[in-house]
């Protein structure tokens, strides 16, 4: 490699780094390295002022490589790629060295060791940058259309939002009726808005948007193509089965959840008088004057929370909505008859945010909340004299075991992931440990999946309230808009490339590629592998498998990684 001109910035991160790493020593250790023409420390490298200084420095010193040693690239890789671009430097000549998460925060007890490690990481980053080359993002023309899978509250709202952006929308619903769970709900928390009315309102909005095609009794049966231009096949069931094909730029998955079905005997489920929250809500709706169950007046209701959720070895997650929904239901009950006694047996009450007000209101209306210890869950039984009795331990009164003779036991059941195997396989959707679909990052990229152009919204991603589902549906709309509204999308050039001369088409790479990006082509009468850059995600799986070392990953080439490692170990080991 010819001579390079590299600038290096070592960030204090306020004190997050400099409290544990001697940043001046790091600078001094790298300032005189070959190809390093500028090195300095900075209080906050990501601050506006420092970014301006960097741009000025890149231009003034004609830098052709940039290294910032700061936080995780997950946080600021795009920030400094942007700095490079604005300074006229190819963004892929930029390298980030993570000396915060991987160094200062991890070694708060060893300043000397942390400083040494930081020097190694920065030297490695400089070595990698020496081997870097300018890369150009691929431009892909995109189709101004979206497919929304699932017409529940999130899917409906997303479809309307996408149409309002001017995109053609295909809204697909597996069942005959749209609206999902919410379409069956009466008044919902926190504002008593009627679920059916909300869905009816959305349907009306849907019908006034001709660019939305609603397909019920339909399922996605095939998908091909790459980001920006997915070919989808939708099978519509019915008297005569038909298929619809379409090209879409993005796909929003909003397939929703299933409710937890308690096992017979679980907290007395199966005993007359033990119902789930959903059944109880239906009972409330059918009892405007006087709560009755099986023709008997209900004087006492006992709620058992977290049934099927937060169970060690079972569904360990929290379903989030159930505490608020139950507390809301109890307010409805007291509105029907304020003299009904209500006992809430809970693990933790999670009426978070403004839903706390509902909890407050329920308490004021006389609901008694009793926390039971994790190891002693309540038990439900019918006694010999036929009374339904819940026995529980009340921590707040000093772990006293109490019997609550009750007329109705409500098992507060949460959400479970829906069975989606076919869809998961077809779209290569990542599924988390809980069985729900996984986003890339819960805060930074909350609706995107690792599959470009495929987004998740609503409760298929994990338990959500109605408003959270709608919000995530709209986030998927915004993300689709950002991808498709320009008509052209840029794809990361960090993809695998084949050195055709070395390739013997053994087929190993095709076997390991999770994205079906690799096919064989004939070049000069020889079969060699070719990689579709629009489909490749740059995971690097094939590069390590190739027995002939014929595949390299742009942006993380073998040469770059070797240089990085050698420089790192030289310092640290």
């Amino acid at each position, binding site marked *: 490699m010819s001579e390079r001109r590299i600038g290096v910035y070592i960030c204090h991160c306020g004190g997050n780094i400099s409290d544990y790493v001697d940043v001046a020593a790091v600078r001094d250790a790298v300032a005189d390295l070959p190809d390093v023409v500028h090195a300095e420390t900075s209080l906050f490298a990501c601050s506006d002022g420092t970014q301006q200084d960097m741009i000025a420095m890149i231009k003034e010193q004609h830098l052709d490589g940039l290294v910032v040693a700061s936080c995780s690239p997950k946080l600021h890789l795009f920030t400094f790629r942007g700095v490079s671009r604005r300074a006229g430097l190819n963004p892929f000549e930029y390298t980030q060295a993570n000396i915060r998460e991987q160094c200062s925060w991890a070694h708060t007890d060893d300043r000397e060791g942390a400083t040494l490690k930081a020097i190694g990481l920065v030297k490695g980053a400089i070595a990698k940058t020496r081997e870097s080359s300018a890369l150009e993002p691929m431009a892909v023309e995109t189709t101004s259309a979206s497919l929304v899978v699932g017409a529940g509250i999130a899917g409906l709202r997303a479809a309307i939002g996408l149409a309002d952006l001017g995109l053609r929308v295909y809204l697909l619903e597996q069942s005959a009726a749209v609206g999902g769970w919410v379409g069956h709900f009466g008044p919902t928390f926190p504002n008593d808005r009627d679920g059916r009315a909300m869905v009816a309102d959305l349907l009306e909005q849907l019908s006034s948007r001709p660019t939305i095609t609603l397909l019920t009794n339909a399922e996605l049966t095939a998908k091909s193509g790459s980001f920006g231009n997915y070919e989808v096949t939708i099978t519509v069931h019915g008297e005569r089965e038909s298929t619809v094909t379409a090209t879409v730029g993005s796909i929003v998955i909003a397939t929703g959840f299933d409710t937890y079905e308690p096992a017979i005997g679980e907290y007395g489920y199966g005993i007359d008088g033990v119902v789930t929250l959903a059944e109880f809500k239906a009972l409330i709706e059918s009892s405007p004057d006087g709560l009755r169950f099986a023709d008997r007046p209900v004087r006492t209701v006992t709620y058992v929370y977290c049934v099927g959720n937060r169970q060690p070895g079972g569904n360990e997650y929290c379903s989030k909505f159930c505490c608020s929904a139950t507390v809301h239901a109890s307010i409805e009950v007291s509105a029907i008859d304020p003299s009904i006694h209500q*006992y809430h047996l809970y693990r933790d009450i999670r009426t978070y945010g403004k839903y706390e007000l509902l909890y407050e209101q329920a308490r*004021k209306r006389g609901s008694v909340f*009793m926390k039971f210890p994790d190891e002693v869950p309540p038990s439900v039984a019918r006694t010999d004299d036929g009374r339904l009795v819940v026995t529980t331990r*009340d921590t707040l*009164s*000093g772990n006293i075991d109490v019997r609550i003779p009750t007329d109705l036991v409500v098992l507060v059941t949460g959400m479970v992931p829906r069975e989606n195997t076919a869809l998961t396989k077809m779209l290569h959707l990542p599924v988390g440990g809980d069985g729900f679909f996984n986003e890339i990052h819960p805060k930074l990229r909350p609706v995107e999946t690792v599959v470009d152009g495929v987004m998740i919204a609503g409760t298929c991603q994990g338990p959500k309230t109605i408003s959270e589902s709608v919000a995530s549906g709209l986030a998927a709309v915004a993300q689709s808009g950002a991808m498709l509204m320009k008509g052209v999308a840029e794809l990361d050039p960090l993809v695998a490339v084949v050195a055709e001369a070395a390739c013997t088409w053994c087929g190993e790479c095709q076997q390991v590629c999770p994205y079906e990006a690799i096919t064989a082509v004939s070049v000069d009468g020889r079969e060699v592998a070719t990689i579709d850059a629009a489909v490749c995600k740059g995971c690097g799986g094939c590069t390590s498998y190739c027995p002939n070392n014929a595949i390299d990953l742009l942006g993380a080439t073998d040469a770059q990684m070797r240089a990085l490692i050698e420089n790192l170990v030289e310092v640290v080991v």
Partner: protein
Amino acid sequence: MSAVIEVTTVDPGLLADIQRFGAADVSACFSCGNCSAICPLSNNDGTFPRRMIRYGQVGLRDELLGSKELWACYHCGLCSESCPQRADPGEYMAAARRYAIASYDRTGLARALYVHPAVGSGVLVALAAAFATFFTLMSGAEPRHSLRLFSFLPDSVVHWTGIAVMIAVVLVALAGVSTMVHGLARHEGVHGRDLVVGAASWRRAWRGAWSAVAVESLGQKRFRDDCADADPAEHWYEKRWIVHATVMWGFIGLLVATMLDYGLSLTGVRATGTPEPVWYPVRLLGTVAGLAMVAGVTTMIVSRLRRSNQASTFSHQSDWVFLTLLWVVGVSGLLTELALYLPGAPSWGYWMFVAHVSLAMELLVLVPFMKFAHVIYRPVALFFQSLANTKA
């Protein structure tokens, strides 16, 4: 403690029932425990008074009525001052004690007096009228030359009525105490044999009784030591324990003077009603005690009217009934005495005397059914408190 896990059945209506005795704000309590943090009586387990409120909320009636701590509280009001929910735990404790008095009483009279103001007032008026009518019917001629109260109303009538009333009160009180002790002993895991078998047990029981009656009840030790008032009194004579001691010792002084008078008559030293100067020891004791009690009760009434401390910000009807009865009994007694020493033997003295005797009898009759009942129940609870403190 019993090893068997006992399961209590909840009484869903308990809190609403307690709230018929006061404690309007306690529903706001969310068991944060600020009250326990500041309470000078809260011991190492740090759950008093929070747990008392919890018992009410959950509906643990037996636990509440079996709690000695209920009666350990002197309503200093620090808990109510520091309650972030303004649930007024101090007033809850007072209401729970009213509820306990009504629950220990098996006749239902206490409950009627507490929760039905109209019925209560009716009973009070009717009872006073009945005694007045009875004593008027039993009265004879009014001697004119000097005020001869016991010629007008024979001392035997007063004495025997008094003795009958006392016996009735003691029987009712014993029934109440037995209910209470049963609950406390069960809750505390105390068995009778723990107190009577062996010298050590006897000693422990004796120490408990001494502490409960002498140190704590008559000596008001914790009241003096621990319960710094939430609103410190401006003057020493406004300190709650001093005011209470004045009333209590005034009342005891009057009781002793009355009994001495009867005793002197029984032993033939001096017949009841014999004219005597104001410095005559028994008369002097009665006069001083009467003045002290009236002064103390007046201070209490003024403090309640002015709401000058946490304990007096909320006054239940039963508080007024008790104070008013004490006050009219004391004042009518002092006026009767005044009539004795006034020249010309004013005839209103006779009627003041009838009023005094009738009201005093009413006060005695109602001891187990009203706030006065704390003289019966508090020492019992303090006895259990002392037993708990002397546990190995």
